């Protein structure tokens, strides 16, 4: 064995030999963090790749795409563009999300001109032996994914909904699309007719003549476009889709990194305690001539080995996890952005390298601080008994912690960066690190303030903790980190859930809600159907609503325009306003009420004038108030329905709120609707209670992955708590041996340890609860607001928090008792023979 290897073995061999269990736990913690992060990255990458591939496939060779409101725009634009000398081919498209009969799902149906589409978007053209099928009304071609999903194949009939009517469509074949997108294609004229879109288009795909200048053409087209339309490239559209899901994906990644962080913290506390225990051994090696730098390198190398082993295991585990999730659940991780997308997992070298590096860095950082301290110790002093507390002395200065806390508080006030709450995340990290650095000082303050118990066992426990606040601080680190993360997420989710519940109560004042269809945008109530619904005996009062998607700004996603009856005197009676409504003066334009997301995304404030593209023209409105909306993340606007109908001439409606006549039950109402409305079976009728249950179920599903990732972080944190308590107790078996010699009973030693465990856990819980509360404020008011534009009020889940406190205290006590039994299992005689 070379001298170098011999020294390395002297340093590392002891640790690997005598602390195998705790080292394995560190490796496992890093592996779990890396696995979760890598799996989330792989799943998101796969979903994005599949989605982008699908979009590319559907965009074909289009250079530019003209798009407008979801309900479409005047088709008169098409011939103008088709005649443009710089445009080789213009392909008009109608897009409808048609509700599938018998299901609460919608299928996108594209109406295309097959001859034009063949030259621009061949993926949207059906393949058939009889070319006339491409033009035949009532005939569709399915994408392979849609056919498999609905089990509807050539020769079968696909039933969808238009208005309140059933629309049978004969499946003539498949389209050429190779992606996993689910859709159907039919002739454009047939689609316009079937879905009441006559004279209206959803988009026009443009292919330039060879050598054409896309930028110049784009500029020229934009200048001549009616209001509410925009020109984008297919890449813009793909980027927009990616952007829509970005906040959610980033949040999941951050949560996965939190698991990795708690893993790193566990390595830190394990390494810190292990290094302190071996302090005299290192002092001996230093005395024998081992340099400081070499000792640090060896100890950091020890951490690197843990990190590397954990990272390798984590990458393998992450890949298998991603593969399993994609197979079983698909690529949607809860928020619905990628619902129905089921790609295969692909090993991403870049992501693997990043997460492997993060795993190693987490373990390296966890080892570096204790290693630096061990190397800095004076060998002569470190060789003496009782010098261990010096190892933690460096952690007792409050300055670094205070600086980080101040920086964290300041960062919480900063705006988002590129739509992401990077400073919000930073603020949470700074508060957490600042508190962790202050822990020894906090522990010292609290312990000094505690009265000295009369009984010897708890008195000794208190003395031990007072004498070793640094050690207590290190063992508290994982507890505080996990408790604060747990508490902050619990408060945020409870606040969000309760705010959503309150909001639902507020926005659903009627007895029953009727929608033309449960899904899609192909259904509506005609004026006649509205009259018929209103004339039903069971109805005391009815209010109709029209929704549609419009483009407020080029390059931004559609925002939802809601046209509904608004009481001019008191709009807050119909809308959950945040703040008060602006009083309008004579001569002001009609009012529009914007959701909080519109304020955040477009910077539009009350009092501002807002031009809404309606019926191809910009219409002037004044922003009269801001309202809270949890249903539409990209923003929503409310205008009075009479104003909408006056401007657009569109008197159809998509939803109705119904107040029932006295003593009429919902079942009676349903019976009367069935009897009076021909399309009743295709409508969705729900009570506020049913909508509430459904909404909260969607909420819980959205947060399911969040809970899972958080649970992983918590489990790692609890490993850390158990591990550090166990390590501390086992390290003191010589002390217990001496105390047994002096006449302390086993029970007294158990009481002493239980007191220590209880005191340390209580401090950890108290600090964790307080820090978690502060972090929850940042999650609620900064991270969520900047990520998803949801405002919410604070609600503390007292029951859950109490359960959490009790569970953690029980765990700490159980770990202490188990460790104490182990420690006292050692022979008291042999224990005192060991050197300290």
């Amino acid at each position, binding site marked *: 064995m070379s001298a170098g290897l011999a020294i390395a073995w002297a340093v590392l061999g002891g640790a690997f030999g005598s602390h195998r269990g705790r080292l394995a736990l560190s490796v496992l913690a890093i592996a779990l963090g890396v696995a979760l992060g890598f799996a989330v990255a792989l799943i998101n990458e796969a979903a994005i790749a599949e989605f982008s591939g699908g979009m590319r496939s559907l965009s074909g060779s289009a250079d530019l795409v003209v798009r407008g409101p979801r309900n479409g725009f005047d088709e008169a634009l098409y011939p103008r563009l088709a005649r443009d000398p710089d445009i080789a081919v213009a392909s008009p498209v109608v897009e409808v999300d048609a509700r599938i009969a018998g299901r609460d799902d919608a299928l996108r149906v594209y109406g295309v001109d097959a001859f034009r589409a063949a030259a621009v978007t061949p993926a949207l053209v059906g393949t058939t032996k009889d070319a006339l099928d491409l033009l035949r009304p009532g005939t569709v071609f399915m994408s392979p994914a849609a056919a498999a999903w609905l089990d509807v194949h050539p020769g079968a009939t696909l039933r969808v909904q238009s208005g309140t009517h059933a629309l049978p469509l004969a499946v003539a074949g498949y389209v050429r699309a190779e992606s996993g997108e689910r859709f159907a294609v039919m002739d454009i004229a047939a689609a316009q007719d079937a879905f009441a879109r006559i004279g209206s288009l959803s988009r026009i795909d443009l292919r330039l003549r060879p050598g054409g200048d896309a930028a110049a053409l784009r500029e020229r087209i934009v200048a001549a476009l009616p209001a509410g339309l925009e020109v984008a490239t297919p890449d813009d559209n793909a980027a927009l889709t990616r952007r829509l899901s970005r906040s959610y994906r980033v949040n999941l990644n951050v949560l996965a990194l939190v698991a990795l962080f708690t893993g790193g913290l566990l390595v830190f506390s394990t390494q810190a305690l292990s290094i302190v225990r071996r302090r005299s051994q290192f002092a001996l090696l230093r005395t024998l001539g081992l340099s400081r730098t070499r000792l640090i390198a060896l100890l950091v190398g020890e951490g690197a080995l843990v990190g590397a082993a954990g990272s390798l295991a984590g990458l393998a585990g992450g890949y298998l996890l991603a593969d399993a999730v994609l197979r079983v659940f698909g690529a949607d991780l809860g928020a619905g952005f990628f619902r129905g997308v089921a790609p295969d997992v692909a090993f991403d070298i870049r992501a693997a390298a990043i997460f492997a590096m993060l795993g190693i860095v987490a373990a390296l950082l966890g080892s570096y601080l204790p290693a630096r301290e061990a190397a800095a110790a004076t060998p002569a002093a470190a060789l003496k008994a009782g010098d261990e507390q010096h190892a933690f002395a460096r952690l007792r200065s409050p300055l670094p912690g205070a600086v980080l806390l101040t920086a964290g508080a300041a960062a919480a006030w900063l705006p988002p960066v590129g739509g992401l709450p990077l400073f919000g995340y930073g603020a949470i990290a700074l508060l957490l690190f600042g508190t962790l650095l202050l822990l020894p000082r906090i522990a010292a303050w609290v312990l000094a303030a505690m009265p000295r118990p009369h009984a010897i066992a708890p008195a000794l426990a208190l003395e031990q903790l007072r004498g070793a606040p640094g050690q207590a601080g290190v063992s508290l680190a994982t507890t505080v980190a996990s408790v604060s993360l747990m508490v902050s997420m619990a408060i945020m989710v409870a606040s969000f859930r309760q705010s959503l519940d309150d909001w639902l109560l507020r926005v659903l004042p009627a007895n029953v809600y009727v929608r033309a269809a449960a899904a899609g945008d192909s259904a509506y109530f005609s004026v006649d159907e509205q009259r018929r619904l209103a004339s039903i005996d069971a109805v005391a009062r009815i209010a109709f609503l029209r929704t549609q998607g419009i483009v407020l700004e080029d390059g931004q996603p559609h925002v939802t325009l809601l046209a509904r009856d608004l009481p001019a005197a008191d709009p807050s009676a119909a809308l959950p306003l945040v703040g008060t409504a602006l009083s309008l003066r004579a001569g002001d334009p009609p009012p529009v009420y914007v959701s909080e997301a519109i304020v955040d995304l477009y910077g539009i404030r009350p009092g501002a004038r807002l031009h809404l593209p309606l019926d191809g023209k910009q219409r002037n409105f004044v922003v009269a108030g801001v309202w809270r909306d949890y249903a539409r993340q990209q923003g929503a606007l409310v205008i009075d329905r009479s104003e909408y109908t006056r401007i657009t001439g569109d008197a159809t409606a998509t939803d109705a709120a119904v107040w029932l006549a006295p003593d009429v039950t919902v079942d009676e109402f349903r019976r009367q609707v069935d009897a009076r409305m021909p399309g009743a079976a295709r409508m969705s009728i729900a009570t506020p209670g049913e909508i509430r249950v459904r909404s909260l179920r969607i909420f819980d599903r959205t947060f399911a992955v969040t809970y899972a990732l958080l649970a992983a972080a918590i489990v790692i944190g609890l490993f850390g708590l158990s591990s550090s308590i166990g390590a501390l107790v086992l390290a003191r078996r010589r002390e217990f041996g001496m105390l047994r010699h*002096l006449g*302390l009973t086993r029970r007294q030693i158990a009481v002493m340890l239980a007191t220590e465990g209880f005191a340390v856990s209580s401090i950890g819980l108290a600090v964790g609860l307080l820090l978690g509360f502060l972090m929850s404020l940042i999650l609620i008011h900064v991270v969520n607001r900047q990520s998803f534009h949801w405002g919410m009020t604070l609600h503390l889940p007292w029951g859950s928090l109490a359960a959490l406190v009790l569970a953690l205290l029980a765990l700490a006590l159980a770990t202490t008792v188990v460790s104490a039994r182990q420690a006292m299992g050692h022979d008291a*005689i042999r224990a005192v023979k060991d050197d300290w």
Partner: protein
Amino acid sequence: MIHLDRVSKRFPGPRPRTVLDGITLAIPRGLLVAILGESGVGKSTLLNLIAGLERADAGSVTVAGSELDRLDDDALTRFRREKVGFVFQAFHVLPYLSVARNVGLPLALLGHDRAPAEDRVQAMLAAVGLADRGESMPRELSGGELQRTAIARALVHRPAIVLADEPTGNLDPDSAAGVIGLLRERLHEEGATGVLVTHSRAAAARADRVYTLSASGLDPTSL
């Protein structure tokens, strides 16, 4: 004060070993007795039997009127708490307690009132030459001072016997001589009986009586 009657002790295991075989020893009150012997001959086992930390396989051990074989674990714990003081080779001073608190530990265990206990601790610290080091932490003390702290702790509750296992093993010759002298002086002052197990003939020479333990038994020795 201490009476061992034909005591035997055997350690089981893959290679069972008899370390004490029919040992008989009587130590009167107030004497300091040293037991010399090679490593592994059973000196510490003998001390552990006297402390009630191990039980004899044969024979009986009676200390300060208590027949240890008849006591259960709790009673043995109480016996050690009240009647025995220990001095270890590795000092075993609690690093997180001040010197005074370390010395006062046995009094706290016995539930003595704080004020008289503090007076007694101060008296013991003065007696071992550490009057001004009561508030110091153990890491600030030299090896000799740590062992003097341990002696003060061993005697502070006025035990009937003090058991010292290689108390000079970690000390230089001058400190060792000082510590044994102090131990002897304090034992006589307090009227306690002492058993000193050591390799050091110099240390043993300060005792009132010396025995040598070997495979053939325990024999009186004159140095």
